[in-house]
């Protein structure tokens, strides 16, 4: 528990985590409001998960949750605090696992709060424009799926941060991946594009308008991505000579 507490303190003791959280909420709310405001009134009906704003939220949260994870590890290399972590713990895989768990929890919290506020604003706007959504348990599952996907993105971000280490490079890769490569992949890779991490996350969130895999298969795929990237990151974290220390 001490290791988890240490990792929680690391994330909560710097302003960038709070800034990313705040930015995620603002971007999601602004996206939801803009999408709903500009839509035709007769499309503002049916299920929440089929609404374009839900899909946009899925994209936005993917990026911010990934950045939270990336930051949690690249900050350690950037500010050279990684040495203290390595000196304090000889079981480095456990330290990395704690980092992933805490980043994942932050991803869940960011996903939950951003959606709670974003959906509330969207529903009020839809109501104000004379539209009406028929919420069902599937929508609850979609929101839960998107929240879970945000947590998983944050865990993947931890692994990316270990593998890339350079903060600017890792953040750039995260942004390009979520906003460009995922779209290009889904457009040009055909069926294989459905199984990219981003498409799998959209599948878990049951996002309408995206041809992602079914939720359970999406969850399985994301678990595979976490296992794959996690294993590579654990190997690097443990084996790499820490030339950046000292």
């Amino acid at each position: 528990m001490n290791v988890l507490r240490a990792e929680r303190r690391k994330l909560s003791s710097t302003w960038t985590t709070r800034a990313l959280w705040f930015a995620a909420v603002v971007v999601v709310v602004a996206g939801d409001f803009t999408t709903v405001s500009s839509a035709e009134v007769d499309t503002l009906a049916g299920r929440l998960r089929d609404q374009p704003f839900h899909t946009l939220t899925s994209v936005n949260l993917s990026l911010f949750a990934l950045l939270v994870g990336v930051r949690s590890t690249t900050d350690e290399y950037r500010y050279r605090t990684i040495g203290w972590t390595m000196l304090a713990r000889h079981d480095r895989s456990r330290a990395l696992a704690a980092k992933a768990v805490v980043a994942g929890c932050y991803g869940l919290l960011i996903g939950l709060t951003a959606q709670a506020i974003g959906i509330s604003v969207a529903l009020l706007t839809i109501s104000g424009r004379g539209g009406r959504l028929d919420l069902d348990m599937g929508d609850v599952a979609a929101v839960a799926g998107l929240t879970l996907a945000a947590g998983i993105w944050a865990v993947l971000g931890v692994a990316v941060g270990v593998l890339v280490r350079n903060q600017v490079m890792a953040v750039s890769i995260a942004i390009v991946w979520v906003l460009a490569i995922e779209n290009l992949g889904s457009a040009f890779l055909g069926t294989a594009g459905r199984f990219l991490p981003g498409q799998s996350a959209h599948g878990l969130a049951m996002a309408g308008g995206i041809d992602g895999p079914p939720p359970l298969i999406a969850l399985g795929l994301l678990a595979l991505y976490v296992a794959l990237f996690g294993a590579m990151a654990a190997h690097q974290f443990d084996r790499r000579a820490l030339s950046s220390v000292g």
Partner: protein
Amino acid sequence: MGVTRITQAGPPSEPAIEVRGLRRVFGSRTVLDDVDFTVQPGSVTGFLGPNGAGKSTTMRIIVGLDRPTAGVALIRGDSYRELVHPARQVGTLIDSSGFHPGRTARQHLLILADMIGTSSDRVDQVLADVGLLSDAGRRVGEYSLGMTRRLGLASAVLGEPDILILDEPSNGLDPAGIRWLRDRLKGFAAEGGTVFVSSHVLGEIAQVADKIIVIDHGRIIADTSIEAFTVDPVVVARSADPIRFTSVLRERGATIEMHGDELEIVGIAQDDVGLVAHETRIPLFALSSRAQTLEERFLRLTEEVDERVAS
């Protein structure tokens, strides 16, 4: 590479730190080559060497931050990574700039206390001990270099270790800070702790260390007490023909430095210098001797090694 090796037998107790056959190769560059030494418990051991000699690499390997190509580095018989609570046995200061500038000193130490598994009550104790308690709520980014050094030392002693491994802890400290550090290290050793410290401030090492280990070009070139290291005196002579006198003395194995018309001679006793002058009929105006400083001995030794490596 033939290098001078000065050794002195230590007391027959289990070493606090033992390094055997350590070798580290980066690509085609050999940074450490067959490094052997021990650090005895309850002592202060200075680890000296020019920049790039291999000091930091050796220390990083001892505390498991780097892996040797060959050889072992042990803490009381175990490798660092085999220690159950490493930071409670060995306090380390390798990279004293390793602080997040957005965190306060207290936050940094609370994180460390959680990772080490030590009580958070220790945080204020060590902050008070290093004189940072009143600044504990300030962001480390606002700290002076001296304050970050103190925070580094607070981090090293947080787990109440009985071995300290410190890489250049006095860098950036003002004279008061250096004195403060010296007193802390002496006090730590007086209470039975073991200190293994590298430094470029040789005068400080001379005042605090019981023993020194000198490394150059990745090899240990001296491992002895400071008294034994500096036992050869420096003979100071003024001659009517310093060029010829220097040449004659060098032929007899002396190491000589010229400072104006004064020659500083090491490797030949004062009486023998006088006899050489008499035999060669070179007039001397002055002849005396004085103790050699650690810095002089260190520089001479590393220059000798440089010459051997170059040849």
